């Protein structure tokens, strides 16, 4: 690995090495390093694609200060699994805009991938995917969360996600009245 190479190395050689490498190194907020294939990163994340194209990828680990190591590990894991489940060229185009392209149901492995995550890890992954501009991963994770919310009453949602109700009684009554249509039993 090139990480420990001193500064004495000529800039040129580094550039060459970088161009040759087929992986990028990402550094989490707590300093852990992860490697992911350049091709997968560029394909799945608009942010990483921009960084790779713009040459702002750091060989010693690109700092992703917003993302913890657990979430980044999941991101990298997802990228690797995704790379193995090719062909999926359709997925890339499908994720550009949710307005024009309908959401594609998660594939079996994607379902398994998010199912094993804890609530904390799942929301961390949403944050990471949002930060990295990974539309497909965002689709898959948010789909999982929306499944957890589906058809539930506000009370049940609070219970699932451990949310404290900070509305007053009057406010809740007002919401119920104004959004009455949402509270009809399905």
């Amino acid at each position, binding site marked *: 690995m090139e990480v420990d190479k001193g500064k004495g190395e000529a800039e040129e050689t580094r550039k060459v090495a970088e161009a040759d490498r087929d992986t990028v190194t990402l550094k989490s907020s*707590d*300093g852990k390093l992860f490697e992911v294939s350049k091709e997968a990163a560029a394909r799945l994340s608009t942010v990483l694609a921009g960084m790779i194209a713009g040459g702002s990828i750091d060989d010693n680990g690109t700092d992703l200060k917003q993302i913890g190591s657990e979430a980044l590990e999941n991101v990298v894991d997802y990228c690797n699994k995704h790379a193995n489940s090719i062909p999926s060229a359709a997925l890339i185009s499908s994720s550009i805009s949710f307005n024009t392209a309908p959401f594609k149901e998660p594939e079996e492995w994607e379902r398994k991938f998010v199912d094993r995550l804890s609530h*904390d890890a799942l929301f*961390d992954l949403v944050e990471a995917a949002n930060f990295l501009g990974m539309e497909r991963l965002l689709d898959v994770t948010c789909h999982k969360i929306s499944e957890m919310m*589906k058809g539930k009453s506000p009370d049940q949602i609070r219970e699932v*996600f451990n949310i404290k109700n900070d509305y007053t009684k009057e406010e809740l009554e007002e919401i119920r009245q*104004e959004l009455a249509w949402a509270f*009809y039993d399905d």
Partner: protein
Amino acid sequence: MPPVRRARAHPAAGPYSTDGWLSRRRRRHHRGVANVTSNLPDDALFEIFSRVSSAADAARCAATCRRWGRVVAARAAAISRALPSDRRRFLPHLALGFIYQQRKENGLRFVPTASAAASPLHLGGGTPLDARLLDERGACLFDHARPVASRNGRLVLELRRADGLTLSVWNPMTGEVSVLPTLSAPKDSPGDYACAILTGDDLDTPPSSSTADLFRLLLMYNRRGSTMLRSYSSDTRRWGDERDKPGDMIRSRVLGRLGPAVVLRGMAYWHTRHGALGVLLDAASSPSPDDDVCFLTYKGGYCKLDEHVLAVSPDGKTLRFVEIRFTNATQVPVITFSTSLLKDPTTRAPPAVSTMLRSTNTFTCLGSKLQGRAGTICCGSVKRVARSSSLFWTNPAAAHVTSSRSTSPRDHWRSWPMECAATRAKTSVAMRWTVPHFLRG
């Protein structure tokens, strides 16, 4: 054989590695008192809300806590747009505005609701409709046409023809026009008549082919001392046979004054002074229509026609009764909604919601669009308001009032609500749902 995993922590992590214990501990501690989403930025929360499976889910999310409510309220328009539109039951029927006719020779004009006016459709207010369709004789098709019914984005127009009654069904959003076969004088042409249009959403067993284009027309008119029913189907493109309406004859003067019909489970209901007259669509074609016509008597007795309207509850299951009165001093309308059609309107105990409209400004269109998920915007009520000149659309259950401005109170004499049936709308219109005032930015 599983692929080599590279997701492990890098062995040579360098001097910055703290193994994450501090940040992780801090986060965990924070979460002890809060919840799994408290660290999530609003942007990421929005991504979640825009991927829920229905508008109702998003609304219930808004009701869980203030922060979620704020995120949903602030980006309600974007969330609505992102919601799946291919699931029919959540399709909003969007109130676009009203079509009215000032005088018969003036042609049709359109008054948009505030939200439709602000939408990318650029629906101008009070402008003449651009309906320069020419008929086979080269005359403008809709010249001197008179609107007689509207529903789910379609408008029924009576065309001015000398040879009898010619009706035309027009979808202003898509531009589709069907000119129905003329009911020619003197044999077929009715005098005063009431007309109702039913669309694919209203029919119990719609044919498998595209229900979006489907419509049926129901006519009720007098002939030879009795009241007759006749229906038109867009499948066969023919009028059915005319049949006697069971029960008493309705006086022609009353027939001519009946307002828009409310449709519930394939039955059209007209509001009369003493009750609601319901006619099943198939009554016009079925052999024994005795059960297909009903009259629901209002318990309170006589009602003024222009102060009451019939409506359908947002779940599309029951008929409701809406009363609009004016307080004497200020001429502000008070809208009262009864929970049931047959509740005694004199006691009115207790109305589900009573809304005071203080001025038009307080009602700059609370888009009540998503009410319609059961298939209808509940009622179009047109009211002449002495000074403010506004039109109100009311939803009896949720007390949503949608207003639209217009040029002169005279315009409101009689107008026809236009909805944009979302299936037919080719343009995407930003939708909003109401949010409680304390959440509004």
